C-alpha cells in the first residue's frame, strides 16, 4: 500500500499542492473534522527519532488569528507529517508573480499582523522561532488578512535539526549556522538563532513586497532610495532597521517592530510638522497664560498701591482741613479714608487729633476707646498707638481725671516710645495725681532722653503748681516763656500763670498776664487767652461795676467771633453784656444770630423776654405793651419744660417767672 492509500483512512486527498522544503504537500479533507487540511511531510525525520508528545500537544494548543491551527502529527512509512488547517487565498509569492503592487497602508497593516503573530510565537515557553519567513509562507486570505504558514516545527522540536535558508529572506546569522552545519569546521559568527532572525526575515519580505525586488542574499543591503520612493521615509526606516546585519541593531522583539509599524504614519513629516505646530501653539498659550497671571498679580499690587496712595492723600487732607479749622470736612475725609482701609490706624489717629484740637476731650476719649481700641481690624501693638494713647492720656488730664491719665501714660510707654514730650506730660500728670517722687523721676528720665530746656522749665512749673509751690511755678513758667519758640508751650505757660493768679485771687494781675499773652502770642494761639480775658473782664466789671471792663469784654468776645472761635456761650455772654451795657439793639441782634446759628431753645426766648422787659421799662407807662414779653415768656416756659429734666432748674428762668408774675400782678397783662 502506498503512502497515499495509507493516509486515505482519515484524510481524503484532494490535490497535491506542491513540494515543500520537506517533501510533498497535499490538500486533503479531514473526514472526521469535516474540514480541509494541509498535510506536509517534515524534512528528514526518521522514525527512530523520538517525538515528544508533550511538545506536540503544546504546538496543537497554539491559537492565533494569523496562524494556521496545528491539528496533528502522523507517522506514515517512517515519515512524520504535520496536519494543519487549510488557509484559503494566495501566498504573497503568487501575488508578486502576478505583478501585484501594494499600498503603504496595506503593508503597514500586514506588517502589524505578522508582528502580532510572531510576538505570540516568540512568547511561548520555549519560544517558537518561525525560521522561514518569506512571501511564499505568508498567505493573503480572502478577508484581506495575512496568515503565517509553515513555521518550523522541527526547529522547535530538536536542537540538532538541520536548518534551512532561503536566499534574500534568511538572516545572516541563520545563514552562517546553516553553513556551519554543512561544514566540518565551525564558522565564526552567531552561535544561536533567536527571535531577531524572524525580524530580519520580515524586513526582507516586506522590502520585496514594497519594491518588487528581492534581496539577493543576506549580505546585500536594501536600496533605501528605492524603498523611500515606493513607501515613504518612515516605512523605509522600519525596514532598514529590521534588516540590519547585526541582530543587536535590529528591533529586539516582534512587539517593538509592531509598534514601529504602528507609528509609521506618525513619523510622516507632515504629521510631525502638525505636532510641532500644535505643541508650539499650546506652549505659547501656556506661556501667555502665565504672563497674564503675572500681569493680573502685578495689577492687584498696583491697585493696592493706588489705594494706599489715595488713603495717604485723604489722611493729608484730614490734617489740612483740621489745621484750617474745617472740622466737618475733616470728618468727611476721615469717613472716606477709614472706609477705604478699615484696618489702617492713621486716619483714626488724625480724627482723634481733630477732636482733641476742638477740646472735645470726652468725645476724643470715647472715640479712642470704641472706634480704635475695640476695632478688631486695627493692630493695637503698632508703634503709632503710643500717640493715640497719649491723646487719651492728655484728654483725661484736661478733664481732671489724673488717675486714669497716669494709667493711660503707662500704655504709652509700654509700646516703647521715647518721645520726651510724652515723658514731660507724664511727669506733670503724676504731679497732679499727687505722686511727686514719681513725677520727678520721670522728668529726670525725660531730661536724660534729651528733653529741651523750655520743656524742662514748663514741666517743673506744672509740678510745682500741682504741689502748691506757686512762686516757684511762676518763676519756672517765666523761664519757659523766655526760652521757648514754641507758641503752643508759651500759650500753656501763660494759661498756667493765669490759673495760679486766679487761685491767688489776683484778678488784676491775671488780666495783666493775659494782656501780655495777647500781645506776645500769634492770633492762632490766642483763643483760650481771649476766653480767659473776656471772663476776667466780666468778673472785674461785676466786682467793680466799671462798665469799661464790660466793654472790653464785649470787644474781646467780638474778636473771638471774628476769628471763628464763636460758640453758643460766646453769643449768650455777649447778649448779656450788651444788655448790661444798655445796648439793647446789639443784644437783640446777638440773640437773633444765636437763634440763627444754633436754633431755638428756651434760653433764646428767655433772653428775648428779658430784653423786652428792659425795652418796655424805658417807655412811659402809657406806652408800655407787655404782649410781646408775654409771648416770649410763654414760649420760653414751654421749651424750658420740654428741655429741662431731672429736676434741674435754671435760676434765670426762675427770675423770669418772677418778673412775669409781677407784670401780671401789675395788671399789665390780661
Amino acid at each position: 500500500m502506498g503512502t497515499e492509500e495509507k493516509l486515505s483512512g482519515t484524510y481524503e486527498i484532494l490535490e497535491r499542492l506542491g513540494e515543500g522544503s520537506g517533501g510533498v504537500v497535499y490538500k486533503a479533507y479531514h473526514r472526521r473534522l469535516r474540514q480541509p487540511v494541509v498535510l506536509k511531510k517534515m524534512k528528514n525525520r526518521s522514525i527512530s527519532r523520538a517525538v515528544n508528545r508533550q511538545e506536540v500537544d503544546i504546538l496543537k494548543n497554539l491559537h492565533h488569528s494569523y496562524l494556521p491551527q496545528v491539528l496533528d502529527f502522523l507517522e506514515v512509512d517512517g515519515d512524520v507529517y504535520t496536519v494543519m488547517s487549510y488557509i484559503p487565498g494566495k501566498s504573497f509569492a503568487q501575488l508578486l508573480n502576478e505583478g501585484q503592487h501594494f499600498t503603504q497602508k496595506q503593508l503597514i497593516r500586514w506588517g502589524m499582523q505578522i508582528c502580532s503573530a510572531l510576538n505570540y510565537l516568540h512568547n511561548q515557553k520555549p519560544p517558537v522561532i518561525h525560521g522561514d519567513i518569506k512571501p511564499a509562507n505568508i498567505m493573503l486570505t480572502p478577508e484581506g488578512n495575512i496568515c503565517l504558514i509553515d513555521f518550523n516545527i522541527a526547529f522547535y522540536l530538536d536542537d540538532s535539526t538541520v536548518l534551512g535558508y532561503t536566499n534574500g529572506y534568511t538572516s545572516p546569522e541563520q545563514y552562517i549556522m546553516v553553513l556551519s552545519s554543512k561544514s566540518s569546521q565551525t564558522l565564526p559568527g552567531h552561535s544561536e538563532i533567536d527571535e531577531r532572525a524572524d525580524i530580519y526575515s520580515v524586513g526582507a519580505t516586506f522590502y520585496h513586497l514594497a519594491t518588487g525586488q528581492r534581496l539577493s542574499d543576506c549580505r546585500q543591503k536594501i536600496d533605501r532610495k528605492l524603498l523611500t520612493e515606493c513607501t515613504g521615509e518612515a516605512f523605509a526606516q522600519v525596514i532598514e532597521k529590521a534588516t540590519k546585519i547585526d541582530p543587536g541593531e535590529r528591533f529586539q522583539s516582534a512587539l517593538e517592530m509592531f509598534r514601529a509599524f504602528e507609528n509609521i504614519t506618525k513619523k510622516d513629516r507632515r504629521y510631525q510638522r502638525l505636532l510641532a505646530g500644535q505643541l508650539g501653539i499650546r506652549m505659547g498659550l501656556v506661556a501667555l497664560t502665565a504672563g497674564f497671571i503675572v500681569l493680573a498679580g502685578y495689577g492687584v499690587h498696583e491697585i493696592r498701591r493706588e489705594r494706599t496712595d489715595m488713603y495717604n492723600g485723604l489722611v493729608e487732607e484730614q490734617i489740612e482741613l483740621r489745621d484750617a479749622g474745617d472740622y466737618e470736612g475733616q470728618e468727611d475725609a476721615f469717613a472716606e479714608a477709614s472706609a477705604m482701609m478699615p484696618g489702617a490706624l492713621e486716619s483714626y489717629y488724625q480724627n482723634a487729633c481733630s477732636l482733641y484740637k476742638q477740646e472735645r476731650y470726652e468725645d476724643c476719649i470715647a472715640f479712642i476707646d470704641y472706634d480704635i481700641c475695640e476695632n478688631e481690624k486695627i493692630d493695637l501693638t503698632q508703634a503709632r498707638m503710643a500717640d493715640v494713647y497719649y491723646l487719651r492720656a492728655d484728654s483725661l488730664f484736661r478733664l481732671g481725671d489724673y488717675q486714669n491719665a497716669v494709667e493711660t501714660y503707662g500704655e504709652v510707654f509700654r509700646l516703647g516710645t521715647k518721645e520726651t514730650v510724652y515723658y514731660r506730660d507724664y511727669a506733670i500728670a503724676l504731679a497732679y495725681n499727687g505722686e511727686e517722687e514719681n513725677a520727678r523721676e520721670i522728668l529726670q528720665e525725660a531730661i536724660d532722653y534729651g528733653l529741651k530746656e523750655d520743656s524742662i522749665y514748663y514741666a517743673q512749673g506744672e509740678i510745682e503748681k500741682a504741689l502748691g509751690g506757686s512762686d516757684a511755678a511762676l518763676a519756672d513758667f517765666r523761664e519757659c516763656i523766655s526760652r521757648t519758640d514754641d507758641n503752643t508751650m508759651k500759650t500753656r505757660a501763660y494759661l498756667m500763670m493765669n490759673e495760679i493768679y486766679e487761685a491767688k485771687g489776683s484778678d488784676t494781675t491775671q488780666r495783666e498776664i493775659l494782656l501780655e499773652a495777647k500781645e506776645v502770642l500769634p492770633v492762632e494761639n490766642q483763643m483760650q487767652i481771649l476766653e480767659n480775658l473776656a471772663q476776667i473782664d466780666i468778673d472785674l466789671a461785676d466786682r467793680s461795676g466799671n462798665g469799661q471792663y464790660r466793654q472790653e469784654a464785649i470787644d474781646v468776645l467780638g474778636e473771638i467771633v471774628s476769628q471763628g472761635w464763636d460758640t453758643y456761650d460766646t453769643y449768650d455772654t455777649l447778649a448779656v453784656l450788651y444788655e448790661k451795657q444798655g445796648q439793647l439793639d446789639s443784644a437783640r441782634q446777638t440773640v437773633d444770630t444765636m437763634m440763627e446759628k444754633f436754633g431755638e431753645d428756651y434760653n433764646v426766648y428767655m433772653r428775648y423776654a428779658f430784653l423786652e422787659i428792659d425795652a418796655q421799662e424805658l417807655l412811659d407807662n402809657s406806652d408800655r405793651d407787655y404782649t410781646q414779653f408775654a409771648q416770649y415768656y410763654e414760649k420760653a416756659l414751654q421749651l424750658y419744660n420740654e428741655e429741662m429734666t431731672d429736676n434741674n432748674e435754671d435760676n434765670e428762668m426762675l427770675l423770669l417767672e418772677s418778673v412775669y408774675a409781677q407784670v401780671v400782678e401789675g395788671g399789665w397783662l390780661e
Partner: protein
Amino acid sequence: MTGITYGVVLTVTGILGAIGCITGLIVTAVAFPRQRKKMLEKIESE
C-alpha cells in the same frame, strides 16, 4: 475708591487674558486630536 485706574486695567486685562488663554487651551485639547486624526487618515489613504 472709584474709577478705572492703571491697576484695575492691568488686573482686568490679566484676568481676561488668562481666561482667554485657558479657553484656548481647552479648545485645543478638543480640536487638536481631531486634527491629528484627520492628518493620519489622510496620510494612510495616500
